C-alpha cells in the first residue's frame, strides 16, 4: 500500500506546510491557450492541440521517472506506466494506447520551461495497481474534459479497461 503512504505523506505536507511555491504556476491555462511549439507526437492527439511542425530538442530531464514527484506528472491521476512494464511514454506489453487524452502543462525544473504533457492511458487490461500517483496542477472539473483527470481516457480503444497512464511531452508551452 505504498501509494497510501504517499497519499498520507503528501496530504500532511500540503495541509501543514502548504506549497506556496506552486502558486507561481497559476495561470498556466492561459499559457496553454497560447501556441504549442515543437515536439513530435507519435500518436494521434485528439481533440487536444497538436504540436506544430518545427521540432525542438527533447527537454533535458533529471530525477526518477517512476516517482510521483517527477515533473511530467503534474496533472496525472493513475498508475505510472513505468512501474507497469512500460515507461513514462510507452505502454506495457499487450495494452493499447488511447488516442484521446487529457493534457497538463508542467514546468521542467531543469530548464524552467513549461511543457505540454499528453497523458495517454494504456488500456485493455485491469488496473496495473503499481505506483498510483495523483497530482492536480491544472486539473479542472469533468465538464472541461481536455484538462480533467477524473475521466477514464480509455476512449477510442478496443476496450475501455484502464491499466496505466503515460506522460508524453508533445511540445513546449509558450508563455503569455
Amino acid at each position: 500500500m505504498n501509494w497510501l503512504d504517499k497519499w498520507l505523506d503528501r496530504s500532511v505536507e500540503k495541509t501543514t506546510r502548504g506549497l506556496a511555491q506552486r502558486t507561481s504556476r497559476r495561470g498556466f491555462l492561459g499559457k496553454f491557450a497560447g501556441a504549442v511549439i515543437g515536439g513530435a507526437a507519435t500518436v494521434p492527439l485528439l481533440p487536444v492541440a497538436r504540436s506544430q511542425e518545427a521540432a525542438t530538442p527533447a527537454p533535458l530531464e533529471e530525477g526518477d521517472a517512476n516517482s510521483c514527484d517527477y515533473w511530467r506528472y503534474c496533472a496525472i491521476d493513475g498508475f505510472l506506466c513505468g512501474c507497469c512494464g512500460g515507461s513514462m511514454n510507452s505502454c506495457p506489453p499487450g495494452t493499447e494506447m488511447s488516442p484521446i487524452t487529457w493534457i497538463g502543462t508542467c514546468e521542467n525544473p531543469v530548464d524552467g520551461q513549461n511543457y505540454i504533457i499528453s497523458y495517454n492511458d494504456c488500456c485493455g487490461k485491469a488496473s496495473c495497481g503499481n505506483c498510483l500517483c495523483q497530482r492536480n496542477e491544472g486539473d479542472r472539473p469533468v465538464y472541461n474534459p481536455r484538462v480533467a483527470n477524473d475521466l477514464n481516457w480509455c476512449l477510442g480503444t478496443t476496450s475501455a479497461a484502464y491499466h496505466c497512464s503515460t506522460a508524453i511531452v508533445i511540445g513546449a508551452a509558450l508563455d503569455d
Partner: protein
Amino acid sequence: MKKLIFLTLLFASTAFGQIQPEPAGVIQTLPESWPPHWIIVQDGAFFHMNSGKFIVVDADSDDPATRFKGMFNGTFIPQFFQAESRPEMYVTETFYSRGTRGVRTDVLTIWDKQTLSPVAEVVLPPKRASQMPMNYHIQLVDDEKLALVYNFTPATSVSVIDIVNRTFLGEVPTPGCSLVFPMAGRAFASICTDGSMLSVQLDEDGQQASTARTDVFFDANNDPLMEKAAMVDGVAYFPTFLGRMVPVDMRGESLEVGDTWSLLGAGDDGWRPGGLAVTGTDGAGRIYVLMHPDGYEGSHKDPGAEVWVFDPATRQRVDRIALQLPAISIGLTRDDNPLLVATNINLEVDVYDVASGEFQRTLSDIGAETPFLLHGAN
C-alpha cells in the same frame, strides 16, 4: 457413485441427537425502510475495477461483525443513485463479454433494498461516462418516472430511461456540457465547458423538446465551479475552487443563477474546498463542505481537515467540525439527528455526530478497499 452409496449408508446408520435440526437455505433480507443511520459505502475498487461493491453498514454500531448488513456489486467504476419513492437503488455498469475485453454492454441495474438482489436491468447505449465515482451521473426526474444517465465518448449526451417500465427511451445530445442535474418536471441541466449551464426539457416520449443556455456565469479556468454540488430544495449549490458558493435554482422551467457568496469569513484566508466528494446536505437543508487550509493551484482534490456547515438561507457558517484525520469524501445520514461520515486518508470511514461535532468511531474492516463515496440511506 460408490461415494454416494457410502455417504448414504453413513447417514442412515448415524444416530442423530434429539434436537430440532437447523433449517438450511435461509437467506436474510433487510427491512424495506432502512434505519436512519445506515449508510451505503461505495467501493470503487480502483485496483480491480470490475468488482466494485456497495456495502450497507450501520454507522451507529461498534460491532465490526454485525454492522455489516449486506452488499451488492457494481462492475467497472459504477455510478449510483437511490430512489426515494421506491425501495430501489440504481447502478450503471459496464461489462465486457470476456472480462476486460470482448463485446461491451452497458446497463442500468435496479437493485431491491430488501433482498439486495438485482430485480431488473435496462440495456443502455455503450456510452456511459467512465469516470471516478461522482454524484450527478444518474438522476431521477418527473416524480422519479424518468432516469437519466450521463454519457461521454468524448461526445457528451444523456440517456433517458422510463424507469417505471424499465425501458430505454432515447438519447439527448448535450454538446459541450456534462453530467445531469435534476430540474422540475421532465427536465435536466448540465454544466458546460464555457462557464454556462444547459437546460433540456423532455417531451412525453422522453425526447428532447427544447433546450436553453444560461449566460456565461463563471470562469471555468481560473475559479471553476466544482461539479460536486449540494442540492437543497431544488437549488444546486456549487462551491468554486477558490471558495465561493454559486447557487443555481432548478425549480422552474429555466435555470436561475443566484447571487454568489463566499464560504470564507474573517481569518479564513487560504481555506478552500477540496476532495473527491466535497459536499453533503442534511434533512434540515444545511450544506456541508470539506475544507483544507493553505490552498494552492491543484489542491482542489486534497484531503480536507475540517467540514464547514452552512445555512444557505442566511449564507452563514453555522458549524465547523474538525476531523480527527483528513478526509477525501464526506456524506450525511438523512435524518433529523444526522451523522457525518467521512472517508479518511487511510481509506477507512470515520463517523461524527453532527450535533456535538464529536468523533464517534472508525468503520474499518467493512470489506471496502477504496470507499470513494458514502451515501446516507434513504
